[in-house]
Structures are given as structure tokens and as C-alpha cells.
């Protein structure tokens, strides 16, 4: 039996050249992979072309003023989105700051032996479950739970620190703060999960060496582990930011949909995505073109944010990880 097998192996040879089927299989798989990769690029170009085609009349009509004006009035057919651009960026940045700090802290907590590994995995699963909650549910949770909780705090802040631009107005109900807080919770799973991976990728030797030098845990985390994982953490933050920029339903329910530019956390605002969500169903004619233009603006913002994130990520990689 074994002899037969041995013979067969000799006969065919362990180092035989690849058979025809294997060559065709490899070449086929190669083409298939390339086709898949290109189809994604083509798909994005196709989407851009479809949106762009419909946006062209509005682009010709409103031009650059679309980005600098502050009115969105269907009746007078005046369209401009500066308040929405402001609201999109402001709410996302606030969410990134709050959700980002929380997410990275959770990642440190879960990976640096603060708790038993089994308990940590339960925590991790819980945080990741947050990603499975539908946007509408977050919106409802914001209306029924978060806003009532936030109201007394906001009232107190406005009363005592009203001179500070962030607390300038009273919180009526929906507004920037509840929207950004809910956004922060929504980006938390993305930020935390990728940050955990970033910390896990740090070689055990680095940690051992750090402690071997006699550092305290805080020093190890802040001076060695955070810089080492920084490119991964940045990737987490960029992805979280991207998610915050495009979030629609929860924001349409919580931000107040008011065309205002204000630094105050408690005044209502609007975002590009929620403008589109609330206007599309009944839009017609010029309004659809203007909405397509707004969609292009949002795409461009997301694109620039990702490019910027990539650039910063490479800078930090070079600085801390000595990569090519």
C-alpha cells in the first residue's frame, strides 16, 4: 500500500510542473481578481457619472455660489448648502472627538490586561453589537432617552456658561449635541474594533521590552504602545469619520434640520445627508438637480477626508514605525 503510494509519488514527481488545469486555474483566478478589483473602480465611476449627469444643470445654474450661500428655498428655487456643509463637518468632528476618545480608550482597556481575557471578549462583543442596531432605532433612542437626559445638563450649562460659544443657545430638543452624541455611539464599534486590532498587532516583544525597561503601565501605554499603533488608530478614526459624514436617518431625526451656522452645541443644524433624506421623496425638476449637486459635494468631502486620512497615516507610519 505504502509502496504503491510511494511509487505513484515518484512516478508523478513531487516537484512536477503544474498541470494544464492548474495553469488555467491560476490564470483564470488572476483575471477574475483583476476584474473584481476593476469593477469596483468602474462602479464608483459609474455612480459619479450618474450623479454628475443629473447635477450638471444645477452646477451650471448655481455654480460656486451653491457652496457659499445659505438658503435652501424650493419655492424661490434658490439652492445653496453652506449650512449643510458646516453641519456635516461640525457634527462629524464632534462625534469623532467624543467617539474617538471613547473608542480608543475602550480598545486600551480591552487589550492591555486590565481585565481577564474572557471578560474582555464579552465587552468586545457588546461594543460590536452596537453596529448591528439600525439607524432609526438610534434616532428614536435619541428622541426618547438621550434628549430628556441631556436637557437638564444643557440647561445648566447654558445658564452658567452661556457666554461660551458652545453653550450660546438653549436646547429646545433636537440639535447638534444630541445628534453628535448619537453619532459618537454609532461610530464607536468601528473605532473600537479596528483600534483593538491595531493594539493586538503590536509584537509581544515590544511590550516585554518596554516593561523590561522599568516603565509604569501608563508610560508604556502613552509613550510606546499608542505611537506604535498610531497608524492603525488613525485608520480607525478615518473610517469612523467617514461613517459619521454619511449617516442619514438618525441625524434627520435628531439634528433639527434647520439651515443655520452656529458654533453652539444646543442649536438645531442640518447635514447634507439629512437634507437629501428629507427632500428627495417629494423633489422634482430643479430641486432634484440641486440635490444631486449636494450629493456630489458630500462625495467630494468624503473623498477628501479619506485622502487626508491616508496621508496622515503614512506620515505617522514613517515617523513611528520606520516603514518604507
Amino acid at each position: 500500500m505504502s509502496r504503491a503510494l510511494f511509487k505513484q509519488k515518484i512516478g508523478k514527481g513531487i516537484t512536477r510542473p503544474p498541470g494544464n488545469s492548474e495553469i488555467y486555474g491560476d490564470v483564470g483566478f488572476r483575471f477574475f481578481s483583476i476584474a473584481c478589483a476593476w469593477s469596483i473602480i468602474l462602479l464608483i465611476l459609474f455612480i459619479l457619472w450618474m450623479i454628475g449627469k443629473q447635477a450638471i444643470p444645477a452646477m451650471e445654474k448655481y455654480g460656486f455660489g451653491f457652496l457659499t450661500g445659505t438658503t435652501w428655498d424650493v419655492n424661490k428655487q434658490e439652492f445653496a448648502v453652506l449650512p449643510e456643509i458646516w453641519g456635516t463637518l461640525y457634527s462629524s468632528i464632534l462625534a469623532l472627538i467624543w467617539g474617538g476618545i471613547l473608542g480608543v480608550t475602550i480598545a486600551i482597556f480591552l487589550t492591555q490586561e486590565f481585565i481577564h481575557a474572557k471578560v474582555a471578549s464579552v465587552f468586545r462583543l457588546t461594543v460590536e453589537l452596537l453596529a448591528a442596531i439600525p439607524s432609526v432605532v438610534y434616532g428614536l433612542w435619541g428622541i426618547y432617552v438621550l434628549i430628556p437626559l441631556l436637557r437638564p445638563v444643557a440647561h445648566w450649562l447654558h445658564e452658567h456658561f452661556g457666554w461660551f460659544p458652545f453653550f450660546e443657545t438653549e436646547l429646545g430638543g433636537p440639535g447638534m449635541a444630541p445628534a453628535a452624541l448619537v453619532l459618537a455611539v454609532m461610530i464607536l464599534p468601528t473605532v473600537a474594533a479596528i483600534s483593538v486590532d491595531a493594539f493586538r498587532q503590536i509584537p509581544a516583544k515590544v511590550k516585554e521590552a518596554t516593561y523590561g525597561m522599568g516603565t509604569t503601565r501608563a508610560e508604556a501605554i502613552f509613550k510606546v504602545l499608542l505611537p506604535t499603533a498610531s497608524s492603525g488608530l488613525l485608520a480607525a478614526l478615518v473610517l469612523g469619520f467617514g461613517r459619521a459624514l454619511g449617516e442619514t436617518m438618525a441625524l434627520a431625526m435628531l439634528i433639527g434640520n434647520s439651515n443655520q451656522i452656529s458654533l453652539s452645541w444646543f442649536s438645531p443644524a442640518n447635514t447634507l445627508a439629512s437634507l437629501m433624506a428629507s427632500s428627495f421623496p417629494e423633489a422634482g425638476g430643479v430641486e432634484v438637480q440641486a440635490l444631486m449637486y449636494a450629493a456630489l459635494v458630500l462625495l467630494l468631502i468624503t473623498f477628501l477626508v479619506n485622502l487626508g486620512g491616508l496621508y496622515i497615516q503614512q506620515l505617522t507610519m514613517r515617523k513611528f514605525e520606520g516603514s518604507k
Partner: protein
Amino acid sequence: MITACSGGSSDGQSGTDSSAGNGENVQLNGSGASFPFPIYSKWFKDFSRKESGIRVDYQAKGSGAGIQDFVNGVVDFAASDAAMKEEEIAKVQKGVILLPMTAGEVVMAYNLEGVTELKLPRDVYPEIFLGKIDRWNDPKIAAANPGVELPDTKITVVTRSDSSGTSYVFTGHLSAVNADFKSAVGQAKAPNWPNSANFVKAPKNDGIAAQIKQTPGAIGYVEYGFAKLTGLPVAQLENKSGAFVSPGPEAGIAALASAKFPEGNLPGTEIPNLIVWVTDPEGANAYPIASFTWLLVYADQDDQKAAAMQKLVEYMLSDEAQDQADSLGYIPLPQNVRAKVREAAQHIQ
């Protein structure tokens, strides 16, 4: 998109059906206003059950979207709270019949702890929605409500974030009552509300209702049915003859009674024009903000569908159907209006 496909396929179906010569399985697809959706869906379900062989499907996409579908010919009928504009009517080659089917009131719901009765005079409520009166203890509100303890809080005004027939009716009334409102905001499905920190917007009727319920000091406008459903307190409004009236079926019927239908026909047709607005009704008992909502039907269509459509309209006008209006928060059509609608429905061919 979905209606486009299903509308198309059902067209094909009924085509083969009629050539085969049997009168079974007619499908009517409609889309449009979300305001009458609760009562329409009930009517359509009851009707489909009674008339085996006719199926009615309706998608509440909003009045504007309904009119677009109707103009593009992808549905068999549509519904709109804002009727149709003349240029929209002109675009429909098959001809349009506009039939008032039911009516509703737009109410101002509010959230003030301990205040169960609130009277709002004619010179006050437009100013609230202009942002000129922005605190609850404003002397003008206090003067109309002696004995009511009004809190020293900011008024949060909740309006619609989406385009809506309800907004059209509501701003139509405010424009009729207040000249400043007319020039600053005007009547529109998506009005340009003042940009003030105390104005917030919420999607759909239920979004506004939820927002009011959760926000102390809020006021907003919703359909009467939604206020009734959610148990929100609603303000009494001062009408043209100076009386403060609560919304309800009697006050609604009194408002509709003052509607004067136009004499003529729809432009270029024999079909009576049933587009009428009661922007500021007369009568001591009339609630000031009421409006019909219309069913849009093609004048000229497939014979089988026309027959089904006529049966449907007949059912919607029947006592059985109209008597359900009250319990669902709508105003039943007065008998004289039903007679007019029946007459106009004869033109469905």
C-alpha cells in the same frame, strides 16, 4: 420605481385579460399623499375584500411624489392634499378628474406641563410661526388665557422637514390671516421657515408628534388624526368670527360648509372643477384650518379599469365608508359635496 414596474406589468396583465374577455383580477395601483393613508388603506382593504377580483394598492409617498407618478402615467390613480396645479393638469394627456374624498383639520399641538386648555388668538399664532413671539409668557398669549399659568420658557416651534400637503394647507391659512406671514413665508409644500434657533424640523406627521411629546415648551402642526392618536393637547384657535374653536368633526364640517366650489369646469374639459380651498372659513363654529384631500383619476383609460375605478369611488362615497371618517380623525364629506363628486366621477371612462 416599484410602482413604475408594478404599474407597467399590471397594465400588460389587464390588457391580456380584456382580450380574453373575462372581467376578473383588475389591479389598481395608486400613490400619493400620506395624510389620508390611514383611512385610504382601510377603505381599500375593505373594498378589495368586498369586490373579489379588484385589488387596490396604495403607497403613501407624499402628495408631490403622487402627482409626479400620475403625470408620468406609472399609476392608475394618485392622491394629493394640494390638489394639482394647472400646468400639472395640462401635462396629463389622458385628462384628469380631481375628486375630494375626505377632509381633515390641521391642529396646533403643544407641550406645556399643567396647561390643558390653550387659546390662541388670530394675531398670535401666525406670529409664533414667524418667530416674533418666542416665549410662552408673552403678554399677548397671557391676555387670551386668563387664569392659565404660562411658564417663562422658550417656545420651540416644530415644523415639517419634508415637503408636505399638510404644510401647504397650514401655511395657506396663516397667509390668509396674516400679511406679514404671507410675504415672509407664504403658502408652500416646503415653506421657508424663519432661520431661528427655536425652530426645529421633523420628518412626517409622526415625527412632529414625537418631537412635541418629548419637548417641553414645543408647539407644532399635525393632522387632527395624529394628535388624537397620540393624545397630544391641541390649542383652540380663534376663527374669522372671533370665537375660539377646538378641532373635531362638527367644527370641521362647519368649516367645510363654507366651501364654495368653483362654477366652471377644469380647463379645456367637461369635467367639473372641484378644487376649492377653505383657507379662512366663515361661521361661528367653524375650525379655521381645514381642507379636502383629492383623489386624482385619469378621465380616459382602459374600460375595465374605468369600471373598477368607478366602483371604488362609489364605495369611498358610500355611507359605510364615510361614517368611518370620524373615528379615524377625518371629516366625513357633507352630502352635497358627495353628490358633486358622484357627478364628476361619471367622467371616468
